[in-house]
C-alpha cells in the first residue's frame, strides 16, 4: 500500500491507466468508448462498416497519444498499455477485431521491440480468431538513433501523429487497406524527428526521476519513454537547441529546395506552450533560410513523456497527396481540422 503520496494527481500508481481512461470517457462520452474489461478505447461508433480501420497503441504516459486521436478522419482504436509499457497482445487483438468494419485493419506500430512483438502477435491472434485482414506499418522517425546493426533500428516518436492523420484521412475517403497502408508508409518515408529533454520524467510506479540530469545539462536525442538520450550536453539557448534538432532532422530528410513541409514542435508534457512557440520561431526561420516552404506548422503537446520538460522537432516533406490528406477534416478530442 502506498502511504506517502508522491506529487502527482493520482490515487494508486497501479490504477493510473484505468482511472485516466475512465476520466477520458467521461470527458468525451460522445466520441469514445471503452471496450469492456480492457484498456482499449475505440471510436464511439466503431466498427465503421465499409471503412478500413486504423488502430494504434502503445504504453501510456504519452497523452493525448493515443486515444486523443480517436474519431472520424483519424484513429478507430487505441490500446493503452501500462505507463511506458506496450499493451499486451491479447488486448491489441481484441481491439483489431472490435474495429474491423469488414475492410481490414491497419496497425500503426512505433518501432520499439515491445510494441512490435506484441502487435505482431496480436495480428496473428486476430487473424486466427476471426477473418479480419490485418496490415501494419512500423514508424521509425527518430533520427537521433542510428539505424544500424548495432541498434534495434530507429525509434518511432512524434512523426507517428502525421502517420495517424494521413492514414485516417485515406480510410475516411474510402481507400482500401492497400491504399491506407501505402500512404502511411509514404509518411514514414518522408518524416523525421529529434527530441531533447531538459528534465527527466517521473513515472507513477517509480516516483522519482528516471534519469538524473545535472543543473546545467540536457539530453539530446531522447525517445518518449523517459529513456536517456544519445548525448548529454550543457544547457544551451532555445535557438541553439532548435538548431541542433532541426539540422539533424533536415540532414536526414535532405529535402529539395522549394519543398513544402509540415512541422510539429511537440512538447514533452511539462514544457510551457510559450517555450514551444520560441522554438517554433527559430525552426521556421531555419526552414526559410533553407528555402523550404512551411505549409502547416503545429505547436503543442502531441506525444508526451509524462511531466518531462523538453520538446521534439518533426518535419514531414509533402507532396500533393499528403497535403490533401493532412487537410482532410478530422474531429478528435486532441485534434480538430475543419
Amino acid at each position, binding site marked *: 500500500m502506498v502511504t506517502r503520496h508522491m506529487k502527482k494527481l493520482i490515487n494508486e500508481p497501479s490504477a493510473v491507466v484505468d482511472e485516466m481512461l475512465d476520466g477520458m470517457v467521461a470527458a468525451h462520452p460522445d466520441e469514445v468508448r471503452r471496450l469492456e474489461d480492457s484498456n482499449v478505447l475505440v471510436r464511439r461508433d466503431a466498427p465503421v462498416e465499409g471503412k478500413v480501420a486504423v488502430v494504434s497503441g502503445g504504453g501510456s504516459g504519452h497523452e493525448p497519444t493515443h486515444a486523443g486521436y480517436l474519431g472520424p478522419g483519424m484513429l478507430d482504436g487505441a490500446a493503452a498499455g501500462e505507463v511506458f*509499457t*506496450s499493451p499486451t497482445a491479447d488486448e491489441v487483438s481484441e481491439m483489431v477485431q472490435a474495429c474491423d468494419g469488414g475492410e481490414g485493419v491497419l496497425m500503426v506500430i512505433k518501432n520499439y521491440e*515491445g510494441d512490435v512483438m506484441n502487435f505482431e502477435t496480436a495480428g496473428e491472434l486476430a487473424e486466427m480468431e476471426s477473418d479480419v485482414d490485418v496490415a501494419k506499418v512500423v514508424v521509425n522517425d527518430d533520427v537521433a538513433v542510428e539505424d544500424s546493426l*548495432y541498434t534495434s533500428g530507429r*525509434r518511432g516518436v512524434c512523426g507517428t501523429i502525421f502517420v495517424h492523420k494521413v492514414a485516417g484521412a485515406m480510410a475516411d475517403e474510402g481507400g482500401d487497406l492497400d491504399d491506407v497502408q501505402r500512404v502511411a508508409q509514404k509518411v514514414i518515408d518522408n518524416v523525421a524527428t529529434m527530441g531533447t529533454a531538459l528534465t527527466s520524467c517521473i513515472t507513477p510506479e517509480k516516483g522519482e526521476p*528516471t534519469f538524473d540530469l545535472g543543473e546545467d545539462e540536457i539530453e539530446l536525442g531522447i*525517445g518518449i519513454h523517459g*529513456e536517456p538520450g544519445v548525448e548529454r550536453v550543457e544547457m544551451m539557448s532555445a535557438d541553439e537547441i532548435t538548431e541542433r534538432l532541426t539540422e539533424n532532422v533536415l540532414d536526414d530528410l535532405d529535402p529539395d529546395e522549394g519543398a513544402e513541409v509540415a512541422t510539429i514542435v511537440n512538447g514533452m508534457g511539462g514544457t510551457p506552450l510559450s517555450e514551444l512557440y520560441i522554438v517554433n520561431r527559430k525552426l521556421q526561420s531555419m526552414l526559410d533560410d533553407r528555402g523550404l516552404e512551411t505549409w502547416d506548422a503545429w505547436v503543442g503537446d502531441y506525444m508526451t513523456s509524462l511531466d518531462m520538460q523538453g520538446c521534439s522537432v518533426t518535419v514531414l516533406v509533402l507532396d500533393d497527396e499528403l497535403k490533401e490528406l493532412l487537410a482532410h477534416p478530422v474531429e478528435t478530442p486532441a485534434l480538430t481540422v475543419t
Partner: protein
Amino acid sequence: MADTATEREAVRSAIERVAARMEEEKEYLTDLDSAIGDADHGANMDRGFQAVLEKTDGMDDADAAELVKTVGVTLISEVGGAAGPLYGGSFMSASAELGDGITAESTVAFAEAFLDKVQDRGDAPVGAKTMVDALTPAVHTYKKSIEEDDLEPVEALTKAVDACQRGVNFTTPIRAKKGRASYLGWRSVGHQDPGATSTLCIVEELQETAVE
C-alpha cells in the same frame, strides 16, 4: 518419474518462489532499467508474476505442462513491453516439452525450447546485452551437465545458476545492440541489463525449488 501431484506441487512452489522474488527485486530491476531503459522492468515482472499466482491458484487438477503454459499465457496478457512476449511466449511454447512429465531430459528440452523461442521472437544474438546473454550460458551449462557430465538435475541447476550469473556480469561491460538500451549506443556500456538480471532471479529460484 514423480507422479502428477508431486510435479504440480513442485511447479507451484517454483511459481510462488519466483513471484516472491520478483516482488522483492522489483525496485532493483526498475533501477537497472532506469539507467538504460524506461524504468519499468521491475513493475512489469512483478505485475506479471502476481497475476500468474492468482491465475494458477485454483488449478488443482492441472499437470506441470498446463501450469507452465498458464504462466506463459498470463505473462503475455499481463506484462506487455518487451519482457511480456519474450518470457510469456517462451514459457507458453516450451511448456509442451513437459507434457510427459518432469524428467532430466524433458527439463533440458524445455530449457532449449525456451531459449529458442526468446531468440526467435526477439532476434537478439548473444552479446547484444539482453536476457539472451544470461539465458544462453545457463541453458548450455544445464544441458551439458545433464547430458555429458551425468549430473543430477539439482547439481546441474546449481552450475546453471553460476553460468547465468556470469552471463549477467558479462552484460555490464558491453554495448547494447537490442532493446531500448541500444538507443544509448556507447553510453549503455557499464550498466547491467535488467532482463538478464530477471532471468538470473528465475533460474536461482528454480534451483532453490529443486534443492527443497
